[in-house]
């Protein structure tokens, strides 16, 4: 067994303002680069085990879009020790639940288990990371499943393509250009080797954050993490090992110049032969290059206006703005600005556009914060017989009002109270805590931000809200999409 190196053990304690409950946790790095976060909450005998892989659709080859999401499916197909379909079966038959999701920035896997099954969860996730099955049988099945998912969520769902259509126009350079669901043609065109390479690049220890929350014993949990995760090879050694189990003797020797027989199949990392030892050491010291994207810097230069025809009855209006990335200091003020516009039934958009003027069936705005950029979206489904242009005009008036007039002290207090309430509720479940901790570590570089988030909001002033409205609601540089019924085409 290897020595447990606790490189970054942190006991975090911050002052929590207002009603926010402080989340206690510990975190540390394993020698192979896996970041571990543990949060103890014993009130219910359940535990959430999650791994966040820092890979999303933005890391994809533009000719192979949809890969990150595809992997979310593929990595349930089994591992060297787990048969096809067994992932879910093992979790379910042990009283757990599991799922995964993929965004532009990350792929997130989690199990919710009875707390006495924590070790099972750790074994399952370590298997997925070390040697998942990335091969044709699973690829074929999941290709069809993903196509059905796209038909259900995008093609057959009214307005379902607005996300794809909006991002395509907001980002022409940055890989946020395409949506996580990606292109089915790309998935069809991809070969097994493309999938294997994606796994070798992004599913490596240094790209993983293991976040566990719930009814757990910290010391015992650390021992199990040591057992299942510290033994995962570091750097490129993991891919040497993967090739060792997947390649034929001839192919392996051709690639690495050393015969497979020189390695110990039962204890690969401790292979005795000098050639093997040398090769392993050399690959372990080579880091896996994880290609990262850059912050989006492209500016919209004008208004991009387009019509999309869909199987709908009521026209829809979607307006998109470029906001800064989620870690930008202005993100707090932008969230509060969004509350003024669209938070609750007394918000301005709801009051004016839906209730008073009865222009829309639904109308709301939301901020979509990402790692390299942010997006602000206004969406409205028109009331029967209302022109989309008139809804846009009314929305513009509302934006203009905020730009020109400071919001009242009372409205400001209202937004602060709402934010406080939402913040308290956001950490109500252990699954939510595990995810928040992992997100904060990966995107903000600090899991402890979970305890400071509310403070960030409370520091925003009314002037900040006015300032960000002026800065980011660029009426002469935005994307305006009109969704119209197909029969009007």
């Amino acid at each position, binding site marked *: 067994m290897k020595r447990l190196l606790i490189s970054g053990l942190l006991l975090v304690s911050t002052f929590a303002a207002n009603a926010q409950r402080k989340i206690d946790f510990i975190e540390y790095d394993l020698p192979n680069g896996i970041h571990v976060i543990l949060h103890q909450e014993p009130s*219910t005998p359940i535990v959430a085990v999650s791994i966040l892989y820092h890979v999303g659709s933005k890391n994809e080859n533009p000719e192979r879009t949809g890969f990150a999401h595809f992997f979310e499916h593929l990595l349930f197909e089994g591992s060297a020790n787990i048969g096809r379909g067994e992932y879910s079966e093992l979790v379910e038959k042990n009283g757990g639940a599991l799922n995964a999701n993929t965004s532009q920035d990350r792929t997130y896997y989690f199990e919710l288990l009875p707390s006495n099954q924590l*070790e099972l969860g750790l*074994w399952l996730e370590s298997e997925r990371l070390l040697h998942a099955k990335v091969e044709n049988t699973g690829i074929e099945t999941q290709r069809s*499943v993903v196509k059905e998912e796209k038909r*259900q969520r995008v093609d057959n769902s009214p307005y379902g393509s607005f996300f794809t259509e909006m991002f395509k126009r907001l980002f022409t350079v940055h890989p946020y250009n395409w949506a996580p669901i990606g292109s089915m043609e790309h998935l069809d065109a991809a070969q097994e080797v493309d999938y294997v390479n994606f796994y070798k690049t992004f599913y490596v220890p240094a790209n993983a954050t293991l976040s566990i929350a719930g009814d757990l014993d910290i010391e015992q949990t650390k021992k199990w993490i040591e057992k299942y995760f510290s*033994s995962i090879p570091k750097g490129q050694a993991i891919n040497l090992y993967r090739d060792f189990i997947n390649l034929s003797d001839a192919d392996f020797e051709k690639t690495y110049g050393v015969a497979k027989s020189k390695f110990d199949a039962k204890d690969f990392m401790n292979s005795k032969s000098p050639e093997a030892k040398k090769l392993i050491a050399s690959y372990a010291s080579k880091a896996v290059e994880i290609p990262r994207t850059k912050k989006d810097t492209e500016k919209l230069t004008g208004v991009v206006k387009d019509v999309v025809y869909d*199987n709908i009855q009521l026209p829809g209006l979607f307006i998109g703005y470029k906001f800064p990335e989620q870690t930008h200091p202005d993100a707090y003020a932008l969230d509060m600005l969004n509350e003024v516009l669209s938070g609750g039934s007394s918000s301005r958009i709801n009051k004016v556009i839906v209730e008073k003027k009865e222009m829309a*069936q639904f109308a709301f705005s939301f901020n979509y914060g990402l790692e390299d950029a942010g997006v602000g979206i206004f969406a409205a489904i028109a009331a029967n017989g209302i022109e989309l242009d008139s809804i846009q005009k009314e929305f513009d008036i509302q934006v203009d009002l905020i730009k020109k007039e400071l919001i009242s002290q009372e409205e400001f207090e209202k937004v602060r109270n709402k934010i406080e309430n939402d913040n308290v509720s956001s950490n109500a479940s252990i699954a939510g805590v595990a995810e928040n901790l992992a997100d904060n570590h990966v995107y903000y570089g600090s899991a402890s931000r979970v305890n400071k988030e509310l403070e960030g909001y409370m520091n925003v002033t009314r002037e900040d809200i006015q300032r960000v409205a002026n800065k980011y609601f660029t009426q002469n540089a935005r994307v305006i999409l009109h969704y119209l019924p197909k029969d009007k085409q």
Partner: protein
Amino acid sequence: MKKIIFIAGLILPTVLFGQLDRSVRPNPGQARTINIKDSEVFTTSNGITVILSENHKLPRVSIDLFTGSDPKVEGMKAGLSEMAGSMILSGTSNRSKDQLDNEKDYIGASLSADATSISLACLTKHMNKGLELFSDVVFNANFPQSEFDRIKKQNESGLLSAKSDAAIMARNAEVKVNFPNHPFGGVMTESTLANITLADVQNYYKSTFTPKGSYIVIVGDITKDKAKEVIEKYFGSWNGTEPYKAEAGDGEFNKGNRVIFVKKPGAVQSVVYVSFPEKIRTGQADQLPLTVLNGILGGGGFGTRLMQNLREDKAYTYGCYSNLSITGDGSWMSMGGNFRNDVTDSAITQILFELDNITNDYVSDEELNLTKSSMAGAFARSLERPSTVARFAYNIIKYNLPKDYYQTYLKRLEAVNKEDVLTMSQKYFTAKNCNIVVVGNEEILKKLKPFDADGKIEMLDAFGDEVKEITKANISKEVLLQNYVLATTKTTTLKAAKKKLKKIKTYQELTDLSLAQIPFPLKSTKVWMAPSKEGSKMEGQGMVFMKTYYDGKTGATTNMQTGKKEMTADEITAKQKSVGLIPEINYAASGMTTELLGIEDNNGTKVYVLKFTDGSTETFDYFDTETFMKVKSLSIRKEGDEVIESTSTYADYKEVNGILFPHTVNTSMGEMAFSGKVTSIVINSKIDFEVFK
């Protein structure tokens, strides 16, 4: 399934890693026992049952008010409860809607309402303010006309967008076919929405939300003493009527599979739901084993038979599930998902296969254990939410369950065995009497025919109503009426028909009626005496519930509950246009206004639709285009604000004295659905007309 796992286990190589043998699966540790904290329950002086689940983990509290009234059949006003629910927060006599919204948002609270509940959630420190708003709504909700108009308009737009949402369309069709004349089967349409008035909404609120029999469920950061204090303070003086109570019935069971198709132009996938009602209610002993059975078939997770077969094996879909809904007012089973056009029929085949297959043999130990463990796990996970414990207490009281129902849940679940599961499937499942609802592209329609027992696919619209596609009639209304008369009288000329009818001086028809809501048999008597006297009565258990008569000049209806009501002048004028045993023969002479609308489809048969109007009643008669016999009659009567719709279907025509009369007559009116079997028709006997007066 057992076999597959076994094989998979064999071919896996043993992969060792360091001293760690990775092929060894970890064993579970000692399970912690699950304790369910008892909720506090107390009753207020005005009849509210309060359930409190204390939990101080987070500084927030939620308070929900649930009505104790049973759901109603809304018929021609379907959607009324929905409308009323969305209007409850439209303002009070103290606060306009704007003020209410503002004050609620100011404390960051959520205050929401629907047809049967009103809910508050906020931080503990804002609870008093939240309750002040809550009780203002409960006591003083004032339903302003302007908000009514706005919400109505919004619903009109909403109904338009429902026409493009396949999932909503499928759900609409599903509830309508499984639950006709039942509260679940009400679907708001453009015409039912138009029938709803502000007065209806106000009455709905008053009769539904009343302290007696209602529940207040409190969860969160509050002590029992404090809870008692605030409930007394904010709800103690609330008064109201008795809650509405009615048994809803079980839904309609099919004979043979029915395919119901809803067109969605341009669809790339079909939404398929295979469903049928179930005779079971919340808390009955079969609920747990039946839920286990549903779990194995498709109730949850990836390991179920439907998911493994249709997603993992065949990749027809992103997800295929079965859903068992057991409620206090009716229950049903529904299986399905979204399937691409070219595999829609194969998907239905596989769903029906799995549904049938599970009734043929014991489920395997593996799948039984999988489902039981997964249900036990879900039960444990649900306890993380403080609201779960409160819901348990609510169910125990509302459905009269044993006090330890949830304490013993895991033990009872553990005891469910293969025999129980097979018994459940054989008792509750059928692959032969299903409603197969398909929403999709018309190009797949022809592939669905083999699934329908009589080969006649029913076409419904987005709201689950029959599609009325009327084509132009190929004959005139005069020819239609004449052909009808000739067909029923089995003659070839009008002259012969009149001659045959002239010989009939009296007509008496006895019918056995059955009605879901009434447990004993009913008998109806109908008489006619030349030239224009008519009488009818309905009786049972020695009582006459209703009788009517018309003596050619005047008449009346006597109802056991509401007394005698004379015919109005309008009704008499209308009646005079519809005289004779077969009134159609006299329409031209009596001045009845008729219009032949055209030909449409009625359950797979082409029919002529003839509309006639007398006074405030519009009637649509449906005649078979081949036999010219009358198969259905739909009448819509307006009485002030009320709209009364009744539909009668006629079948089983038999000859009596050379004339064909229907011997099966089913009539539905609002929530009443009568099935009638004619037991005798006697011509020219002596009739005592006085008994109908």
